[in-house]
């Protein structure tokens, strides 16, 4: 029953669209760094601003498209998970601060690690939906492929983020179109 609510979050494809848009945004911002390394630092705040903005946009779309058609359902997440998530972010930021140079030099491995992390996230998001297994596999293969080819440091991350963004947005768009067609709004 709980799994059904998780699956319901993906009934309209908006999650994939938003997740894909976030990856595209990341690719865009990193490519900004590649082309304008001097102006990038002040842009970091702007970069961070994009992600919650995309999240908010998705929520507004759900409010207007999904909730009136098939209803609102949000799984009740145990409170400790918020602490686990916050702790994880804190750990990553702390490690980043202390080992910045090391992290910077090992950027070539990032498509692989990003692919792995994204695959895990997609499996969690999908709640057992078949299309998410394919997406997770594609995300991992994409990351592994780019690492294997040994693409240039930043270019690898830019290519990976952009391709992943498109990879998610295309099925997301198709799912949204099908959903809107199937669930017409009652007048």
């Amino acid at each position: 029953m709980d799994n059904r609510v998780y699956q319901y979050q993906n009934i309209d494809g908006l999650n994939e669209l938003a997740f894909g848009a976030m990856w595209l945004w990341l690719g865009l911002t990193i490519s900004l760094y590649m082309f304008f390394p001097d102006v990038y630092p002040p842009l970091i705040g702007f970069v961070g601003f994009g992600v919650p903005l995309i999240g908010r946009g998705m929520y507004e779309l759900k409010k207007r498209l999904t909730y009136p058609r098939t209803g609102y359902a949000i799984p009740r997440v145990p409170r400790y998970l918020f602490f686990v998530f916050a702790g994880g972010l804190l750990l990553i930021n702390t490690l980043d601060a202390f080992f910045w140079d090391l992290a910077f030099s090992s950027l070539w491995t990032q498509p692989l690690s990003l692919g792995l992390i994204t695959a895990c996230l997609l499996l969690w998001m999908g709640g057992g939906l078949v299309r998410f297994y394919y997406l997770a596999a594609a995300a991992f293969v994409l990351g592994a492929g780019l690492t294997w080819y040994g693409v240039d440091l930043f270019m690898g991350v830019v290519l990976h983020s952009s391709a992943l963004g498109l990879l998610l947005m295309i099925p997301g768009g198709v799912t949204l179109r099908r959903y809107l067609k199937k669930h017409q709004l009652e007048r």
Partner: protein
Amino acid sequence: MNARDLTDVDRTIHAPARLMIMTILKGADVDFVYLLRETGLSKGNLATHLAKLEASGYVGVHKEGRGTLSKTTYRMTGAGQAAFARYREQLQRIVDSTAPRGRLEPG
């Protein structure tokens, strides 16, 4: 386990329609449209059962926003969670007590 224990189960939850609603609300906060779709009940029927659960203090209603985009969410309360857990334990005990003892030979 006494057969009369069956009469002790919480009847507010035990009715099939309300059991469906409680099962959904156990893991999620949902609105009326979602419940309507998931339970297959009619609007009037669902509203009646929700009102009964609300009156028992098992379900809370939360309203958010105004106008056409306002949202009314149904959420299981603490009392509802406790009652549902109790109900599950009771049912489990009844089911366990009806399990055959020893090995049954076929035929």
